[in-house]
Structures are given as C-alpha cells and as structure tokens.
C-alpha cells in the first residue's frame, strides 16, 4: 500500500496546507479566548478570596493567610453580635457591631424600589410590546436606554436637588407634620426605583417581543381583547425573561451606592419612618473606604465583613434567577 498521500485522488475533502494553517489559527484563537475566560474567573475568585480573608480578621483578629502562618486567633467580634446586634458603629469610641441597621437600610431601599420599578417597568414593557405604534416605540425605547445610561451620581443629585426637597419634604411636612432633614429613606426608594425602571422595562420588553405572533393571533381569533392577550398570553409566555428583569433590578438596587448615599444618608438605624435618614451597606462601605480609619484596625476590617455579606446577597439573587430560568423556560417553540 502506498503511503504517498499525493498519489491518491480524493474527492476534494483532503486537507491540504491551507486547511492545516487554518487549524493552527483556530487553535491560537481558541487559546486566546480561553485565556480571556480564565482571567474573568480568576478575578472573581480573587475578589471572593480577598473578601473572606479580610473578613476573617474582623471576626478572628487575623486574616486566613496569617492564621495559616501561625497567628493566634482572638475573637474580636462574635457572629451573634454581628448578626443580631441592632447598633452599628464600629468606628465609635464605644463600638457597636450589629449589622442589622445597615442590612435593614439596604433591604428597605430594595423593597421600596421594587414597588416602584416592577409595576411601572412591567406596564411600560407591555405598552411598548403590545399597545404602542411603531413610531411611538421608536421614540420611547431610545429614551429609556438614555435613562439607563445616566451615571448613578446624577440620580443622586436629582434626589438631593429635587425628589427630597420638592416631593418628599413637603409631603412629610403637610401630611405628617414632620420636619425632615436633607436625606430620607423614601427618597432613596424612589430614586433607586426610578433608576431601575429602564432595566425592568427593556429586558421585559425584549422577552415579550420574542413571544411568537402565532400565539397572539390564536388568542385574538378567539375574541380576546388586547388586555387579555397581554396579561393571559404574552406575560405568562415571557415570564422567565420578565422575572429575570426583576431579579436584575433588585440586584442592582442591593448594590446601588452613589444615588442611595446621596438620597438616603448615612445614619444607621432601623426605623419605620420613611422620612428618616438611614444608611445602607454600600453607603457604609463608601464612608469607611474614603474615611480616615487606619488600615488593619477592626473598624477598617468591618468593611470586608459587610462587603462579603453584600456579595452573598447578590449571589443568592443570581442563583434564584438561575433556578427560576430553569423552572420556567419559555415554553413556546
């Protein structure tokens, strides 16, 4: 049998030199892309590690790495105090290490914002996808995208300059007789809610527009109204995308920093008064990071404990989103 490949006349599918070179390029491209993917993963892991490492020194007086090198463990802050204490003042002369007030601040803002962004965002999405004419949609969609692109600090000043003094303060004064300061929980809720409307509406709208017209026509032919079609066909059929937009908006609200600091203030407290100043976890972290606290002190390390907690909160939102996506796949084909 001949081993000379050139002797055989193949049907034109034999790889010649050019194909071989293509394969080599393919391999290089693949390695490059893989390298980029690895960098992303490594960065995430590094952040997670730094958070845990430093948070350990908040609770145990030594970083994980130091402990491995034989540093002695000394309980500085107990988990009980951290998770159940209601006074948060790590940098005070008589420090308080209860994280609840700032967790309350973050959750209150998040829930309040969701009450603004979810109904308005969903309604906007339904309007854009089902009701609006082409010309209206072509103007409204870009406007929403501009809204989504405004830096959050601008929203913060919008809250300071407008929402708080013009909307919230007069309500507090005339309806409740409360004399309000420059910051309030309510204005934080409103500004974060407004900020996240475009996120809900544009992602939900994409999901709704992806529902095939066959389904709409089937419903219209049965004598369904536009409202029936929107609420009983389009919304259920696109529910996983719509829900994903809610989760994203909520995650964004949890992690939101600048706007919320400027709108809601820096006063850690658990309160039912929407006109009071509060502090979120992110606001605390800003305060610590840019403050005068010496690196390595317990109050400085509290930054990482709070950061880790925040990370866990947004991570669980992501996991919830994944679970929901798997549970409610878009069923239409």
């Amino acid at each position, binding site marked *: 049998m001949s081993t000379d490949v050139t002797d055989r006349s193949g049907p034109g599918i034999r790889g010649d030199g050019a194909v071989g070179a293509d394969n080599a390029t393919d391999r290089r491209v693949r390695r490059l892309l893989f390298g980029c993917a690895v960098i992303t993963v490594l960065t995430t892991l590094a952040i997670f590690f730094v958070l845990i490492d430093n948070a350990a020194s908040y609770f145990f007086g030594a970083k994980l790495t130091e402990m491995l090198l034989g540093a002695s463990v000394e309980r500085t802050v107990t988990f009980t105090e951290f998770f159940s204490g209601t006074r948060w003042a790590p940098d005070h002369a008589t420090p308080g290490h209860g994280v609840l007030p700032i967790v309350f601040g973050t959750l209150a803002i998040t829930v309040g914002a969701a009450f603004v962004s979810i109904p308005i965002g969903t309604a906007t999405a339904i309007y854009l996808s089902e009701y609006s*004419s*082409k010309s209206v949609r072509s103007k409204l969609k870009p406007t929403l995208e501009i809204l989504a692109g405004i830096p959050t600090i601008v929203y913060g000043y919008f809250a300071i300059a407008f929402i708080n003094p013009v909307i919230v303060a007069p309500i507090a004064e005339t309806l409740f007789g409360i004399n309000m300061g420059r910051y309030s929980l309510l204005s934080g809720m409103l500004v974060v809610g407004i900020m996240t409307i475009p996120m809900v509406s544009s992602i939900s709208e994409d999901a709704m527009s992806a529902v*095939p017209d*066959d*389904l*709409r*026509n*089937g*419903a*219209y*032919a*049965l*004598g*369904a*109204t536009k409202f*029936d079609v929107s609420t*009983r*066909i389009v919304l*259920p*059929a696109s529910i996983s995308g719509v829900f994903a937009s809610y989760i994203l908006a909520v995650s964004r609200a949890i992690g939101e920093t600048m706007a919320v600091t400027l709108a809601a203030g820096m006063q850690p407290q658990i309160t039912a008064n929407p006109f009071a100043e509060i502090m979120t976890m992110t606001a605390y972290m800003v305060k610590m990071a840019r403050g005068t606290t010496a690196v390595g002190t317990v109050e400085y390390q509290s930054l990482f404990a709070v950061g880790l907690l925040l990370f866990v909160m947004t991570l669980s939102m992501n996991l919830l989103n994944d679970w929901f996506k798997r549970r409610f796949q*878009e*069923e*239409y*084909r």
Partner: protein
Amino acid sequence: MSTEEQSLITTEVQTENTTRADRPDETVLEARSLDVYYGQDQALTDVSIEIPEHKVTAMIGPSGCGKSTFLRSINRMNDQIDACRVDGELSFHGKNVYDEDVDPVALRRKIGQVFQKPNPFPKSIYENVAYGLRVQGTVDDVDLDDAVEQALRGAALWDEVEGKLDSSGLDLSGGQQQRLCIARAIATDPEVILMDEPTSALDPVAASKIEDLIDELVEEYTVVIVTHNMQQAARISDRTAVFLTGGELVEFDDTASIFEDPADDRVEDYITGKFG
C-alpha cells in the same frame, strides 16, 4: 366483507352528502366588491361572494393570490396588520363587519379561526380549550369541565387526551395540536369556522382525521377552508372558490362543477396543473 355490505355503506355516505347539498342556501357571509390593500399593493380585487350556512366552502388558488387575506378580512384579523386597508363590503348575516359600530372582538367570538401552523398556547390542554370561554367571560354560565370535554369530543381528541388534561398542549403531536386548536375554536360555540390550510403541516393520516372532523363540524357550523390540496377541496367541500394571481375571484360554484366542468379556462388550467 360482502359486496352488498360495501355498497350499502357507499349509498349511506351518498345519502348524507345529498342531504347536505340539498339544503337550501342561507347566505351567512357575503362579500361585495371587496378590495384589500397592503400599503400600495392590492391583494384582493373586487371580490364578491356569498358563502352559504352549514356548508363547507373551499378556497383554492396559487400561492399569493390572497386566500389568507380574504379569510382574515372576514374576522377582521387584518386589523392587526398596520399596512392593511379594506374597501368594499363584507357582511355577516347582512351586517357589514366594517361598519363603525362593529366590535372586532365581538365579531371574532362568532367567527373562529384555525391556522396553518398549529398554535396551541403554552398552557395545559384544559386551559387551551377553556381560554376562549375565559376571555369571553362566559365561564360563569357554563360548567367549564363539561364545556372542555364537549369541545374535545367535538374535535375528536377526547379519547386521546382524557387522562392528561393537565399536561401541556405543546406536548401533543402536530395532528393532535391542530385538533386541540379546533377544540379551542369550537369551545366558544362560534357560527363560522375559518380554516387556513389546517392540514398542510400534517401527515396524511392526521390530515384525514381533520377532514373527517370537518365533515362532522359542518352539521353545526359553517366552514370556510383554504387549501392547496385539490383532492382535499374536492373531497370535503360543497362549494369551491378559485382565486387567481392578482387577488381576483375567478370562479365560485358547486365543487363538482368546478372540478368537472369549470366555466373559466384559467380555472381549468389551474386545476389540471398547467399553471399556478
């Protein structure tokens, strides 16, 4: 089987057919000089036709001649298409459906439609059939379970889905899905059922089930069906309308006359496959 038995069956079928054909014509739908445009393009030109009640009327013609357009202008599904404009008159029981005071939603509750591609909702079989009753707000007046069962029986699907009404309509086969869509359409008890190539996405066995079903449906409903299949039109319809390119209704007559002795040469050419 004896030949006697066989001939008996044949006569029986024939008798049934004669009774249906012998029924006097009551016009239920009537188009008069109907023109339909998509933007600048005219899809239907001066169509006039009287569609009789409790009969199967077939629409045939080459692709793009406006059959679907005509069907959609009956239940005003063309309203969904921005560029579409309708001129002329289309009346349902003598009332022009394009009059100002006609509500297309109410109209569609009287005139159901089955589409070319089976399009069950991503819901359970039960909810698919119940959907029409729910949106029409008639759920309180009827026993829903009973209505769903009746509709599924009417669509010859009950025996196949009886035990699994809660499973998704999308898990059925294509032919079953199409019968589910028919069940969905008859659940609300319309007067007319429009079918746009209801069997073109189905295999011959599933298609013949639908054909048998149409034969039964016409006892209670008026059926208007678009088909590309001449044999199908010849088999199941009482009347046949032939559209040709340009959106013209060229001939409309008893199915037998159309297929045996068409008046128009172009129709004869189309039917014998010379063009189209």
